[in-house]
């Protein structure tokens, strides 16, 4: 008995993880019309007593809450007596009704039954009733009987397979393998054994008098056909007509990530994920198929049905504006990646069109884990890791700096005269970077009864930053419950609650901690003898404060509480028509506190200040969906979805600050100087009202047609264009299902897809259409009176940015899908990009109306290849994805070029006919070697001397000025390539993940300062090779404080190749053999060690070539501005399920 139970558990687990979903689609199958018709035909008026087998099975499935899997072809035309459905035991009933119909069933687990033809009863032709239990051979003379034993293992893992069905093809007798994968049965010596197991390719082995037959079974990829989540539903992968990439739980778990967005990195073709900041919980930008808007290029996330925009502004506040820049915190880091079951990335218009006005940048569907009925599982996951900076930038030590200072300083420093007496001085990089820990714990409980299932989890994640003073922690909980009220009514919920706490160290800016650590002089100590923070030295007055002190003394804490909740009810109106309604909400409370203590360090001092900011947002959504599914005749399957949805968002913010608190110990506003207090606040709201429908039509399972239509009404659209219509259509042909391909054994799958559709981007600001007023100060009688004038010219026609996409795709599976190739080519044309119109100043200096006028085109190729190189005891799988995207701005309307600004410097330019956001500036030709060369060359500046940079006179007018600027490079990669290898042997598995980005450029603004040689700040060691009279250089200009030639101007000098190959992840894991684990009452146990970003091969001179976009700004990509670098980490982890 005990053994049986265990078996059930294991089998069930497999069912759940890999098969249940696809089977369910079959299962909840829809009585077929023809069956009913034939019933009527044959049975005349006897409808009451007889029903079709399909109906009967469905009804039983519901009645006993069981999963019944059957092939519709087999049950077609078969009827059973209604009365025979009575009974207490499903097994008995099934036996009763199936046997006369020459059908049999096999029970897998508690609740799963597979209906199949009865074993061919060659020798029982005359027997009218068959029962496998009482079969005995009747033919004589009987061959000798022998006992056959053996072990059945998984060909991939070598692990014993438990519960494999072994059947004697002659007698029909069967047995199953035990806990150790062993079996034994008595059969005739010439019998043939059929080994079958769900999810594996069945094998028949003739016994041939052998008494021991060991066998390993191969998993059957086609049988395990996945069901993937699509917008407002799910679909078999084989039925897809659009471009969609899935990221599985397994892939998500391969490397420890704070946010789900980081986990997506490199996982899908056409999806470029870059971490805009490497700070813990830091910002990420995701670009699906290139940048198609100048406003935002981030996709829409749908988390358990709730749409979430990763707009880092709306759910978090930051004070970086006040400090002159920096990245906004990440709005998505509130979601715990450990709670995620799967992520689907919808890429083309056919896949995304159901999200209409929010789909232009692609859609990321996130599904969290749900419970399964049956045994309860408790799983515990944890990891601990350390992170470190993977590279330091070589800046001068004290001795080198003193040498440099002696050359360029304007006053002599006594101590610098004897270089050999000087030591290394302070290494400020060592001072601001650290080895940082991270830890993650997750406890998940799933389970449920026949009617109620649940998944509960709690998680804790803590990650220190590699920059001192920064860390991130998250406490999260999840409660997902599903309950069946009756056969027809199901209700449930998902609830994700989290609280994140982010300690921010100011970075990603030229006065950030990392940036200033590079520029701090090495003769300045971190701390004084008494332990207090030291300030800059008197001799070298710098504009920088001690970065260590700033990182540690300043409290900058952003706390967010997020509640994502969704409840649903699903009602079966007819077997072929389901109604579902959902109500969801997303509530975010964000609280950002900053405190600067008063200080006096060296010649630096400051007064204390406190800033507080509250951002609250509330979002709700209500959906009504009708899903229709019917197979008409044999060949026509129709699935239709009609939906209505309304959603509303509202937010408010409050800001207050005071200065000069009497003590650094108490940090509340009330203690500050009321005379200098500031406060501000505001609010906003928006709404969407949408109607949508989708029709999937499959003819003979090989001609697939999808049509989608969505109408979105948005409060953001002008009154003249309040509703947008977003249609799409796609067609797919599964050529491999055609008769003429069936003879090609090696061709497992061949599908051609073509799709076309229009979607939109509604992230155009809340009130772009509205005519706002500006407040002015009018003076009358020496008084200021507030007056109001129009601020802008309203365009009541403002609407979504439209994106029209065409997609061509091929899916190819060869050699039983051991080689799978997915190839997509797309043309994505964003037109109607919202840009300000160019208007004359006779319009009174009002801000111009935004008009839908710009056009951007992205064309690209995506290739995904998955291979199973070796299978058997050693298993080796390779996955590769390759993406190419070409971006071109077709039109900017009348707006003219768009400029991207960083550090108040125009760094990028977006021009028609060019990719978006290329670097723009002067071209460095070389270094003037002597004064003669200066005077012979085009005029640069009065102060230009030998040793200065010679810039190219691009327009040959003899003078270097604005007109000599040009495009210096593109931040967009030529292609990206990600390669992942999974090896397994026995219980061990190894994952190696390589990430490659090729052909992008980086504008390294840090070098403007560390190689700028302006002022007395510390410099990169390389400036030792600068131009000097006795040692001329052709690379590095002379040192000059005043920089009369503007050597530091934005030029090709600072543009670097950003290509890299990164060893993103190596994980080595060990899974305790199942049999052993089970003996210890553990379902599974896995131990692993892993390392992330162990090595990066690049020519880039900065910390990390992965730069991303600045605050998700589509115009500013790949600009190094003191970005918080991505760390290298080492992790050890343990996952256990009980």
């Amino acid at each position, binding site marked *: 008995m005990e053994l049986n139970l265990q078996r059930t558990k294991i089998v069930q687990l497999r069912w759940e993880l890999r098969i249940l979903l696809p089977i369910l689609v079959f299962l909840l199958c829809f009585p077929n019309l023809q069956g009913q018709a034939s019933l009527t035909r044959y049975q005349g008026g006897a409808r009451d007593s007889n029903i079709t087998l399909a109906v009967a099975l469905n009804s039983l499935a519901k009645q006993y809450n069981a999963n019944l899997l059957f092939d519709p072809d087999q049950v077609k035309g078969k009827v059973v007596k209604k009365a025979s459905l009575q009974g207490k035991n499903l097994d008995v009933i099934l036996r009763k009704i199936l046997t006369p119909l020459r059908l049999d069933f096999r029970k897998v687990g508690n609740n799963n039954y597979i209906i199949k033809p009865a074993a061919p009863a060659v020798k029982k032709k005359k027997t009218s009733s068959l029962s496998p239990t009482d079969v005995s051979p009747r033919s004589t003379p009987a061959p000798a009987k022998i006992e056959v034993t053996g072990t059945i293992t998984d060909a991939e893992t070598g692990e014993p397979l438990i519960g494999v069905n072994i059947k004697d093809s002659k007698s029909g007798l069967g047995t199953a393998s035990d806990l150790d994968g062993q079996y034994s049965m008595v059969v005739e010596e010439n019998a043939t054994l059929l080994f079958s197991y769900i999810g594996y390719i069945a094998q028949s082995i003739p016994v041939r008098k052998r008494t021991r037959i060991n066998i390993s079974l191969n998993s059957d990829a086609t049988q395990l056909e996945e069901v993937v989540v699509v917008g407002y539903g799910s679909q078999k992968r084989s039925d897809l007509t659009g471009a969609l990439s899935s990221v599985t739980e397994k892939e998500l778990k391969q490397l420890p990530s704070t946010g789900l967005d980081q986990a997506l990195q490199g996982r899908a073709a056409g999806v470029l994920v870059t971490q805009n900041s490497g700070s813990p919980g830091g910002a990420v930008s995701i670009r699906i198929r290139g940048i198609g808007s100048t406003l935002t290029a981030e996709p829409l996330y749908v988390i358990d049905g709730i749409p979430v925009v990763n707009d880092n502004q709306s759910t978090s506040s930051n004070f970086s504006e006040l400090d002159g820049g920096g990245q906004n915190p990440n709005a998505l880091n509130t979601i715990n990646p450990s709670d995620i079951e799967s992520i689907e990335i919808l890429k083309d218009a056919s896949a995304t069109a159901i999200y209409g006005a929010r789909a232009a940048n692609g859609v990321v569907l996130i599904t969290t884990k749900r419970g399964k009925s049956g045994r309860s599982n408790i799983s515990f996951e944890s990891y601990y890791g350390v992170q470190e900076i993977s590279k330091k930038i070589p800046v001068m030590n004290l001795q080198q700096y003193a040498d440099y200072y002696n050359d360029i300083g304007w006053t002599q420093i006594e101590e610098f005269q004897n270089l050999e007496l000087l030591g290394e001085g302070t290494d400020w990089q060592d001072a601001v970077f650290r080895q940082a820990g991270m830890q993650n714990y997750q406890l998940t409980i799933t389970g449920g009864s026949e009617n109620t299932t649940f998944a509960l989890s709690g998680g804790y994640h803590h990650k220190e930053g590699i920059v001192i003073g920064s860390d991130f922690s998250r406490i999260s909980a999840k409660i997902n419950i599903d309950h069946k009220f009756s056969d027809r009514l199901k209700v449930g919920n998902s609830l994700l609650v989290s609280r994140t706490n982010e300690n921010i160290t100011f970075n990603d800016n030229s006065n950030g901690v990392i940036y200033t650590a590079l520029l701090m002089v090495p003769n300045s100590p971190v701390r004084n003898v008494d332990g207090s923070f030291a300030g800059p030295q008197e001799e070298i007055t710098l504009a920088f404060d001690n970065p260590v002190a700033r990182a540690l003394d300043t409290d900058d804490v952003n706390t967010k509480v997020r509640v994502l909740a969704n409840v649903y009810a699903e009602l079966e109106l007819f077997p072929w028509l389901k109604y579902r309604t959902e109500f969801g909400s997303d509530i975010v409370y964000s609280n950002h506190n900053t405190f600067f203590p008063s200080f006096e360090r060296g010649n630096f001092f400051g007064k204390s200040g406190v800033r507080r900011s509250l951002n609250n947002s509330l979002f709700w959504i209500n959906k009504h969906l009708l899903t229709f599914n019917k197979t008409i005749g044999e060949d026509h399957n129709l699935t239709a979805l009609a939906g209505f949805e309304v959603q509303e968002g509202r937010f408010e913010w409050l800001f207050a600050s005071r200065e000069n608190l009497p003590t650094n110990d108490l940090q509340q506003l009330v203690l500050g100087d009321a005379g200098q207090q500031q406060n501000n606040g*505001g609010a*906003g709201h928006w709404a969407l009202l949408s109607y949508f429908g989708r029709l999937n039509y499959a003819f003979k399972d090989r001609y697939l047609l999808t049509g989608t239509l969505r109408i979105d009404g948005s409060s953001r659209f002008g009154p003249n264009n309040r509703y947008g219509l977003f249609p799409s259509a796609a067609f797919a042909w599964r050529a491999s299902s055609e008769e003429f391909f069936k003879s090609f054994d090696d061709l497992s799958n061949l599908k051609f897809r073509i799709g076309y559709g229009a979607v939109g981007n509604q992230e155009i600001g809340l009130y772009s259409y509205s005519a706002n007023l500006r407040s002015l100060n009018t003076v*009358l009688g020496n008084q*200021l009176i507030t007056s109001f004038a129009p601020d802008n010219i309203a365009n009541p026609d403002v609407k979504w940015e439209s994106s029209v996409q065409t997609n061509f795709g091929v899916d190819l599976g060869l050699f039983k899908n051991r080689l799978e190739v997915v190839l997509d080519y797309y043309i994505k044309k964003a037109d109607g990009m919202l840009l300000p119109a160019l*208007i004359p100043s*006779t319009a*009174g200096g009002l801000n111009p109306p935004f008009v839908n006028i710009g056009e951007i085109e992205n064309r690209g190729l995506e290739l995904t290849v998955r291979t199973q190189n070796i299978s058997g005891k050693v298993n080796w799988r390779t996955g590769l994805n390759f993406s190419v995207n070409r971006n071109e701005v077709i039109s900017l309307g009348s707006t003219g070029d768009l400029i991207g600004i960083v550090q108040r410097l125009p760094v990028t330019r977006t021009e028609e006919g060019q990719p978006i956001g290329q670097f723009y500036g002067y071209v460095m030709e070389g270094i003037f070697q002597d004064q003669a060369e200066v005077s012979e060359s085009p005029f640069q500046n009065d102060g230009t001397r030998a040793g200065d940079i010679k810039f190219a006179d691009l327009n040959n007018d003899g003078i270097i000025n604005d007109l000599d600027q040009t495009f210096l490079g593109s931040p967009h990669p030529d292609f990206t390539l990600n390669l992942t290898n999974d090896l397994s042997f026995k219980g061990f598995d190894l994952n190696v993940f390589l990430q490659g980005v090729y052909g992008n450029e980086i504008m390294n603004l840090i070098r403007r300062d560390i190689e700028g040689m302006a002022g007395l700040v510390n410099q990169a060691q390389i400036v030792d090779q600068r131009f000097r009279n006795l040692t001329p250089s052709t690379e590095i200009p002379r040192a000059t404080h005043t920089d009369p030639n503007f050597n530091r101007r934005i030029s090709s000098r600072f543009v670097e190749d950003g290509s890299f190959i990164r060893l993103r992840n190596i994980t080595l894991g060990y899974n305790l053999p199942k049999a052993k684990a089970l003996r210890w009452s553990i379902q599974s146990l896995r131990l692993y060690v892993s390392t992330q970003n162990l090595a990066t091969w690049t020519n880039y001179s900065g910390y990390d070539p992965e730069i991303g976009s600045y605050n998700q700004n589509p115009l500013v990509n790949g600009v190094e501005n003191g970005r918080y670098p991505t760390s290298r980490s080492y992790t050890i982890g343990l996952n256990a399920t009980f």
Partner: protein
Amino acid sequence: MMKKYTPILIAALLLMSCESILDKEPLDQLTTNNFYKTARDINSALLAAYTPMQDVDWTGKGWMMLEVPSDNGQPGGTDPEFSPIDNFTVNGDTPPVGAYWAIHYRQVTYANVVLDKLANTEIEQTQKNTFEAEARFLRAIAYFDLVRIYGPVPLITTPPSYDEDLLFPRASINEVYTLIKEDLGFASTHLPTVWTGQDLGRATKGSAMGLLAKAHLTRREFGEARDRAKAVIDLGIYALMDDYASNWELATADNNKESLFEVQFTGCGAWGTGNSRQAFFAPWGEGITKDRDGWGSHIPTSPVNNNPNTTISDAFETGDLRKDVTIMTPNTYYPSINPEDGGYTYPQGGASASSVNIKKYVVGSASNVCFMSTPINAHVLRYSDVLLMYAEALMEIQGGETSSPEALQYFNQVRERAGLDKLDRIDREIMLQERRVEFAFENQRWFDLVRAGKAVETLTLHGKNIQDHHVLFPIPSAELKINPKLTQNPGY
């Protein structure tokens, strides 16, 4: 069966009730939809139409733009913005040319918004007329500058709207003046004679009538000019201040009995609410103000080689009390500048290329003077202008020369206040000279020279390379680029 459809019915009901959810007006912003309803709203919008005049592009750099080409002033050094205007190498790209255009059209726009929105309110008619009169006055003052600077300009009388074509062609000079005269006529009828209390400084009947007189005079419609000027005089509420200097002294300058209209300023308010003229017109680095304020951007003209006697310093007759009010000369002591510190002595040798400097707008560092900002209002129309206009109209009616007691009576009021002898005959030359010294650096000289047809002759004599076409400024290039319906003035 009905039960089955209940959810669908609920959904359908929701659909119907949800439409209004999409109407989301901004929560923290006023919009044209929720404003312009009450008299208070309209008044607020009307006051906004006064702000372009407060802008540095109008009363700071804008006034400088009309002083440097004249024989009164020049830039303090090589100035990429103003030197081309000074030496008549100006073109459509010269920045002040575009800024002046833009700031004046801003006032036109703000006034047009009021006129447009006023029509749809239910404000009582008399009040409505006053609002309308004030808006039309503000529009007229902008167009009057525009037409005198650029000649034929686009004549826009409706607020800009996305539906309408934003690109207007140039109207004729005559059409522009027709609108100016209609606007000022309406304003003369409906504006109050005086404003009091908080409203002090808003346009009055006298403001409109005085400006209308000037418009007529510019159009050489001397009969109308005479009548309008006389009507102002007959209002009986204006008089010359006893002391010319008191028009520029903190205590007495603002909204005094001599003032028909002035741009209102306060000292240390928000940016754009203070008079920036001290910054532009005061000598650089001379410690006149506490904030090192004084950029020497604009100085009196330097003598020119072939005709050294054409500078503003030389223009004053001996004994003219206005001279020391207008310019600072070396070693002169000015007790009214920095009175808290005991006054100010202009240094030996002078702080400018012409050794003299402009005194009129320098108040020093009083307590209510801030960075780039003094509280003194900027005079647009003084009563002495009305007196001289009246005399000029009479003189022109009599052929450009007169000894009529009526004309001389008002003309001599101005001279007597300046401490000069009465004249018993005036002609065009005398009139031009008298206006030059009375209104030096008050943005009148350029207009007077052009109006008198003397600009080219006088400025050539002053050593400038002025051509006939320079009496009109160029149309801003950026504007021509955007609006193909515009044409450039001839010669540019």
